[in-house]
């Protein structure tokens, strides 16, 4: 295509200016890639932080509501009364666990009894949120055993694990007895078997672990559990899995997202900020292209006038400028994508002492295809204005200047 040759020649006639323009485009694209990879990496890290230490789907007894049965044969209505005095528990939990075990998407299942209790030692008393679990599956939901700073996690019949801050305020250390009184009013002397430090203040100050067998008499639940916590292979599937398992069991299934609406809000806000920065970097790229080509079209007025005089069509002249924009867009976007990937990969080599990335950046998630398409498409759009003004030029006026 001859217009293509002309466009290339025009870009080549001023190599420094063209290089500068392409560099500007590439820089904008690099900024786009960087911010995209960073936002994505941050989102992944925040999500991972949450999902690594908590259940992906939680099962609880459904809320009970009184139901009215309409019976056409009777002139009365039957009302299924619901006692709010009844204990909320999952009685058939073994069947539910069996169902969950048959699901390939499930990686961990933890039937639990949760409740509240008070730890009493001398005159000191502290409320605790109790999670009673099968000691063999202590780490199913949160890696408790990795956070133990004293003692162990064997969780014998009278053992209890408490957080490091609670141990400090109560003056408790491993092997010491402590009176444990549940919200059912039942008390028993337990022994501190291990002390953990999760790093989350509220957890280290409030949470205590027991074995299920120890908890049953204390919470008056000889057979049932209060909730079943589930981990999935793919945290992104939590919502659909919750819907499925809730339907299958009649239990209330809550995906992790619903328990962490703050995280969802933060991610949305973060994504919006990212979009704003992406938009600005693209807009600056497009303004750069439009202004550079407008200047070029203006500088070449007399040439364009000559071409129009010897009968070169307006479309041909417009296409020369559109093609210049397209080439700048393609080259700039490609260079920018490479530079962005290089920058992100380099930044991803920096790690903190604990092995996590200093900057939670995801080099593979730079939105490369998107930015390439947006930049090249945008570059053509940006060159429409200079292309039109060049094509509309009046030959005579341009020559006479």
């Amino acid at each position, binding site marked *: *295509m001859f217009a293509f040759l002309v466009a290339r020649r025009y870009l080549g006639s001023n190599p420094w200016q063209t290089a500068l323009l392409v560099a500007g485009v590439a820089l904008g694209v690099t900024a786009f890639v960087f911010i995209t990879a960073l936002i994505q990496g941050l989102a992944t890290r925040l999500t991972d932080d949450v999902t690594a230490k908590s259940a992906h789907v939680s099962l609880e007894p459904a809320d009970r509501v009184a139901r009215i049965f309409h019976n056409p044969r009777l002139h009365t209505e039957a009302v299924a009364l619901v006692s709010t005095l009844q204990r909320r528990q999952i009685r058939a939990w073994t069947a539910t666990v069996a169902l969950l075990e048959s699901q390939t998407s499930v990686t961990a299942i933890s039937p639990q009894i949760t409740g509240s209790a008070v730890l009493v030692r001398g005159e000191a008393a502290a409320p605790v949120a109790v999670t009673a679990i099968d000691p063999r599956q202590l780490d199913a939901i949160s890696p408790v055993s990795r956070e133990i700073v004293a003692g162990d996690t064997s969780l014998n019949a009278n053992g209890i694990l408490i957080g490091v801050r609670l141990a400090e305020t109560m003056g408790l250390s491993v092997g010491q007895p402590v009176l444990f009184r549940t919200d059912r009013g039942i008390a028993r002397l337990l022994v501190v078997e291990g002390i953990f430090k999760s790093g989350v203040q509220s957890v280290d100050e409030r949470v205590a672990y027991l074995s299920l067998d120890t908890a049953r008499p204390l919470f008056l639940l000889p057979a049932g559990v209060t909730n079943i916590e589930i981990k999935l292979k793919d945290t992104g599937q939590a919502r659909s899995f919750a819907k499925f398992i809730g339907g299958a069991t009649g239990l209330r299934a809550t995906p992790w997202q619903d328990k962490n609406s703050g995280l969802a809000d933060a991610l949305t806000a973060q994504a919006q900020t990212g979009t704003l920065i992406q938009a600005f970097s693209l807009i600056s790229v497009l303004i750069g292209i439009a202004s550079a080509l407008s200047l070029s079209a203006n500088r070449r007025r007399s040439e364009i006038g000559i071409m129009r005089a*010897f*009968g070169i*069509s307006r479309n041909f002249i417009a296409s020369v400028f559109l093609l210049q924009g397209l080439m700048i867009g393609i080259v700039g976007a490609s260079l920018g994508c490479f530079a962005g990937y290089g920058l992100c990969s380099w930044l991803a080599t920096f790690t903190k002492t604990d092995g996590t990335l200093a900057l939670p950046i995801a080099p593979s998630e730079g939105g490369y295809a998107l930015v390439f398409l947006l930049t090249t498409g945008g570059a053509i759009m940006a060159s429409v204005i200079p292309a039109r003004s060049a094509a509309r030029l009046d030959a005579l006026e341009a020559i006479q200047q």
Partner: protein
Amino acid sequence: MTASLDARSINMTFRNGDELTRVLVDVNVTLAPGELVALLGASGSGKSTLLSIVGLLLRPTAGIITIGGERADILSDAKSSRFRNTRLGFIFQFHNLLPDFTALENVGFPAAAAGDGMNAAIRRRAEMLLSRVGLSERINFPAARLSGGQKQRVAIARALMNHPQLVLADEPTGSLDRASADQVLALMREINREDGTTFLVCTHDERVASHCTRRITLRDGRIDSALDTQITPET
């Protein structure tokens, strides 16, 4: 015989706001094929305006233009562009060449851009025309580095590229020194004589006119018929 150019009752009035400038009044010009005509007149007499009108670069206020027997003043923008490309040749005083292209590319440009790019036939003809204007040594020379006279000779070659019925030249030697100007004028005369190409050359330089076969003069916006003379050019 069909006239190369027949311009009838050309009137041109420029309007700038409320101010009207009447430049051409009922101008009639007829050029027979093979003529080399000098269009003379004082500065501001309307020579360039008339040339632009017959070159379809400017629409007259009134008048009929026939080129090679075809009505040309009523063509659409795209059609008149096409007409200029295939039927007319242009030589201006300045900025004739595209500086980013070689002499050969400049000559072939009108054909290449109107068709589908440079091809062997275009290249061959451009080479032939360049050697015709005495520039076979400068075929692949960047236009920007040619001398003023060489540039004008390349412009002549380009004007001839598509076998035009009429070549319009506006002060083609206006910015050349005397020797180069003579060379360019002699070349135009030679092409005119050998190929029968019709030229309309506007100039205020009597010496240019002396190379032409006929001279017409614009005065007060009209052709002074008393000064329409056939001449035998010095060769």
